[in-house]
């Protein structure tokens, strides 16, 4: 439902009223921004020396390295999560109960447990002391489990979204179950799932920041180091958060483009979490 059915085309009095609202909103926004700027000024956060580090080439390099680590972790986790999701997603739609139920348990478990807890657990399991893996891998493992479980749901919904007639036609041609899945259902499901997959990348990217808690590298870890060295918490938080926002907006643009290109504008995006009880776990 587009917004403009909710109200008539405004008449002269309404237009005047809306003008008042517009001015009031602008004043409120200006007030918020002004207040923030004033606090920044009063507490000396706008001094050049607090921002200088973000213009120093060697530190910019450190930040870029952090960004690279973050992207690597997110990318690695998503690639592994796709494998994880594929295995358990197909497991969930399997005709064999002995495959379906364990897949269900694994997926539900990892969707209900906080990512940070998974990270801490894998840190204690694999990395603490002279453990075999670096904290970075613990982050990847935790993110793989969580995002893989979410993607399993996405895959399941995507496979179910392929019209039933496609499968029936394939069986009628004499294809076997594996053939139907690999050659008919999955290729079409991937097309439907692509936007959901890319938005899951954003989730993974945001969650890599939690790795700072187990001392894994990444942008948030860089923030910790810079703010400890220069005591410039406010500028550092603003700069690092902006980098996250820009990267995520680029990913969102990619998802929108993929939606238009491969799914079509009219088709609703695949809503995995929107089917009530069984699928009530979020994708934040």
């Amino acid at each position: 439902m587009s917004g403009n059915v909710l109200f008539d085309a405004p008449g002269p009095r309404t237009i005047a009223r809306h003008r008042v609202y517009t001015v009031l909103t602008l004043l409120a926004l200006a007030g918020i921004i002004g207040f923030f700027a004033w606090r920044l000024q009063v507490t000396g956060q706008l001094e050049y020396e607090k921002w200088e580090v973000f213009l120093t080439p060697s530190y910019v390099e450190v930040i870029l390295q952090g960004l690279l680590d973050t992207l690597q972790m997110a990318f690695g986790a998503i690639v592994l999560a796709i494998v994880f999701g594929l295995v358990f997603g197909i497991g969930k739609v399997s005709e064999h109960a002995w495959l379906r139920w364990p897949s269900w348990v694994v997926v539900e478990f990892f969707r209900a447990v906080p990512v940070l807890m998974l990270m801490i657990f894998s840190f204690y399991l694999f990395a603490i002391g002279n453990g075999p893996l670096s904290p970075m891998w613990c982050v990847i493992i935790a993110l793989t489990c969580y995002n893989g479980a979410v993607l399993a749901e996405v895959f399941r919904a995507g496979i179910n979204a392929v019209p039933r007639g496609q499968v029936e036609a394939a069986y009628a041609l004499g294809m076997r179950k594996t053939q139907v899945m690999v050659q008919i259902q999955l290729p079409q499901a991937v097309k439907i799932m692509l936007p959901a997959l890319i938005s899951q990348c954003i989730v993974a990217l945001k969650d890599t920041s939690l790795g700072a808690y187990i001392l894994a590298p990444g942008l948030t870890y860089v923030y910790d180091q810079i703010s400890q060295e220069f005591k410039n918490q406010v500028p550092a938080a603003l700069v690092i958060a902006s980098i996250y926002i820009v990267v995520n907006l680029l990913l969102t643009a990619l998802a929108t483009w993929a939606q238009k290109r491969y799914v079509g504008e009219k088709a609703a995006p695949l809503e995995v979490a929107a089917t009530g009880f069984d699928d009530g776990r979020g994708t934040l």
Partner: protein
Amino acid sequence: MEAVFSNFDEYLKAFGVTLGLFVVSGIGSLVLGLFLASLRVGPVAIMRRAAALYVIIFRNTPLLMIFIFMAAAMPKLGYNFKWVEDIEIAGWSVSAFFVRSTLALTLYTSAFVCEAFRSGVNSVDLGQAEAARAVGLTFAQSMRYVVLPQALRAVVPPLTSVQVALIKNTSVAAAFGMAEATATMRAFTNNNADERIQIFLLFALGYIILVEIVALSSYVLERKWKVA
């Protein structure tokens, strides 16, 4: 197992803190999110844009960065929320950590709540609003009597997802001095490294129970509000 069951009151207390964070920031995010959503579907362009900007900023920032902003940057701006510790109501007072954590969680979650409400309003059939306008209801009336009651039904599943995610997101407060479930799990594991798997599973079970309670109550609501 031993490590948890011999300190079971600590385990319960930890999940009490988790629950407290969830309830306070859950209510806060519903209020703020509803307000933002009403700006986003309203007729004034600048309000729509302002709410959209809020959603873009807070949805694309990692929750940890918002926590950092509340815990590390706000004190630098002169707001450490220490004053709340002086307020005591009937022997209860909250820590500054709690206030900062709930603020961060509320700010973050309300962006998602806003989107959930907006998608709910958008899911109401166009003809409903047209009919409401046709019988002469004003914007506020058609919202209140026609659109919102229907949107409320459509909004339950996505809102549940958001609140379930909030339960799990309260774990981030562990990094900022809250002795909630995840932080307590870490402490338990530190003291009993050989029981780490059991400890993890028991704490995971706690989260699963909380998540299932929310999911189940939303399921009940959905069933109850379903149009026959």
